[in-house]
Every structure is written in structure tokens, then in C-alpha cells.
């Protein structure tokens, strides 16, 4: 693919590496995932066709896997799925517009990860008492172990709580221990504990995603 002409699909941002860093041919279409440089940031990109990226399991999964690979070694600012820029120049223009916000976001999430906790009612317990009490038990205890927290939408009638927590990398074990204790306290409930994720719910930089679908 012609490097000058092709679009750039952006997976996430990391701190500048001082030089191009490659993560291997793990991008869309088997393209190389590598870093560009903008001031003290490095967008993680691959060459890509400018098109609307369909929301399918495989493609979202690929985006997710790339970001997870990157976050093994770096603090990341996640970028929404489907963000593709016509060329490198447009990407750098967008970065310059969002620079301040990115700087602030990075200071917030540096060395931290997102952990997700969902509390789910068992199948047969539609009218389970004490939902509120249970939710506040979970939130109170887990907030103490996290730098920040965010309650998310209850997308199912069986969900009592759906929340994400921003946790220091070196405090993940303590957080997990707390989740386990809460699980023991409520043995009837199903607990879905997931992560570590890139901090999707704690970074919201509009400059890169003002338009639906992320076309530029």
C-alpha cells in the first residue's frame, strides 16, 4: 500500500517513543501496526482503506486485540472503533486540535487500567429484594479501591449494577480481592468481573470522534 496516499486507521494513542515502534502485522488486512509521532504522543496506526467500518464481532475484536497488545507495555488513550483518517496529515491536524485534551487525559489514566464489574440477578429471581442495598454495597466498597469510577447503563432487566473502575496497575490485586469478598457476601448473584481494559470509559476526547463513524 502506498504510504503517502493510504488512509490511517487509529487504534489508540501512547506516549511518544522517540522513534517508530512496530507491533507486528496485526492490523486490519494484516497491515503492520506502528507508531507515528506528534509532540509527546504517538498514535498507534496501520495503513487502511478509508471506508465505513462495520460493527461486526470479528472486526471489533481485532481493534480490541491490537489495543490490548499495545497496553501490555504502554499506558494507552483508547480511540473509538472505526476511526480512519484519509492521510497522515489529517490525522496530525486532528491530534493538534485535541492535544490539550489528550495531555489531560493521559495524566489521568497513566499507569492505570479499567476494570469492569457487573452484578447480575440469577435467572429465576425476577423480584429479588435488596437490589439497591446490594448495589450500594458494591459501589461503596469498590470505589475505595479505585481512583475513579463510572456507573454504566443497565442494559438488561437482570442487571443490578454495571460499573467501570479506573485502578492503579499496582492495586489491581487489592481490587480483585474486594470483588471476590463481595461475591462471597452475595452468593446468589452472578458477578461478571472483567479487565484489565484500556480506559474506554474514562477518556472522552470529542475532537477525534465528533462525527458518527469517525470519518475524516
Amino acid at each position, binding site marked *: 500500500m502506498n504510504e503517502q496516499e493510504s488512509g490511517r486507521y487509529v487504534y489508540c494513542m501512547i506516549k511518544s517513543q522517540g522513534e517508530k515502534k512496530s507491533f507486528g502485522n496485526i492490523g486490519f488486512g494484516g497491515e503492520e501496526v506502528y507508531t507515528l509521532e506528534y509532540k509527546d504522543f504517538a498514535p498507534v496506526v496501520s495503513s487502511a482503506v478509508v471506508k465505513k467500518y462495520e*460493527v*461486526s*464481532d470479528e472486526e471489533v475484536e481485532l481493534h480490541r486485540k491490537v489495543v490490548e497488545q499495545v497496553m501490555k507495555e504502554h499506558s494507552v488513550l483508547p480511540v473509538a472503533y472505526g476511526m480512519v483518517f484519509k492521510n497522515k496529515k489529517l490525522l496530525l491536524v486532528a491530534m493538534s486540535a485535541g492535544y490539550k485534551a489528550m495531555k489531560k487525559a493521559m495524566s489521568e489514566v497513566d499507569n492505570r487500567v479499567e476494570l469492569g464489574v*457487573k452484578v*447480575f440477578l440469577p*435467572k429465576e429471581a425476577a423480584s429479588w429484594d435488596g437490589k439497591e442495598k446490594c448495589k450500594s454495597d458494591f459501589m461503596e466498597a469498590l470505589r475505595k479501591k479505585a481512583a475513579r469510577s463510572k456507573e454504566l*447503563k443497565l*442494559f*438488561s432487566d*437482570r442487571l443490578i449494577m454495571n460499573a467501570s473502575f479506573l485502578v492503579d496497575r499496582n492495586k489491581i490485586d487489592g481490587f480483585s480481592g474486594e470483588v471476590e469478598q463481595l461475591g462471597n457476601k452475595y452468593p446468589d448473584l*452472578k458477578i*461478571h468481573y472483567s479487565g484489565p481494559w484500556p480506559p474506554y470509559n474514562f477518556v472522552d476526547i470529542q475532537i477525534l470522534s465528533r462525527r458518527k463513524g469517525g470519518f475524516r
Partner: protein
Amino acid sequence: MFIIDDLLLRQVGVTIPGLNLIWTLEQIRDFAYRELYNPEKIKNSIKENRLLFELGEITMDEYERTNAKLLQELKLAERGAEMNLSVRTDIMGAR
């Protein structure tokens, strides 16, 4: 061409029985469409389906079948939302 618009007549306090019924039926139809093709509701179902699978309540097979069906519905719903179903097309083509 002069087109009698029931909404316009409604505003000046005139209703024509036939049009009135059509208007009511359209409201019901639109409501049904919005319920059936509500992208937000379908997205919720997609997430719920995923969670049920991850919690081991449904098999991979069940998950995949339901997910494919929901994604199809979501596509239709988003297309429907873009088209704005509540706009009545004038059959004389002079809207």
C-alpha cells in the same frame, strides 16, 4: 397543485373523518416501528446476549445465532432511522 394536508387542517381546527383515521393509524404504525426497530433496544439485547454467554447461561451456538439475528435487526433499524419513517410520501409526488 393544491394539496390538502391533514396536519395543516388540524391546526386550524378542521378534521376530515377519513384523514383523521389514517393519521391515527399512521401514529400507531410509527409507534410499532419505533418499538420494533429501536436501535437502542437492539443494542441492549446484543449486550445482554453477550453477557449471558460469558456467564455461561447460553451456549456458543445460541449466542452466535441470536447475535447474528440482532445485528441484522440493528442494521435495518439504523437504516429505518435514517429514512425517517414518519414522513408520509405524497402519492402525487408533489410534496
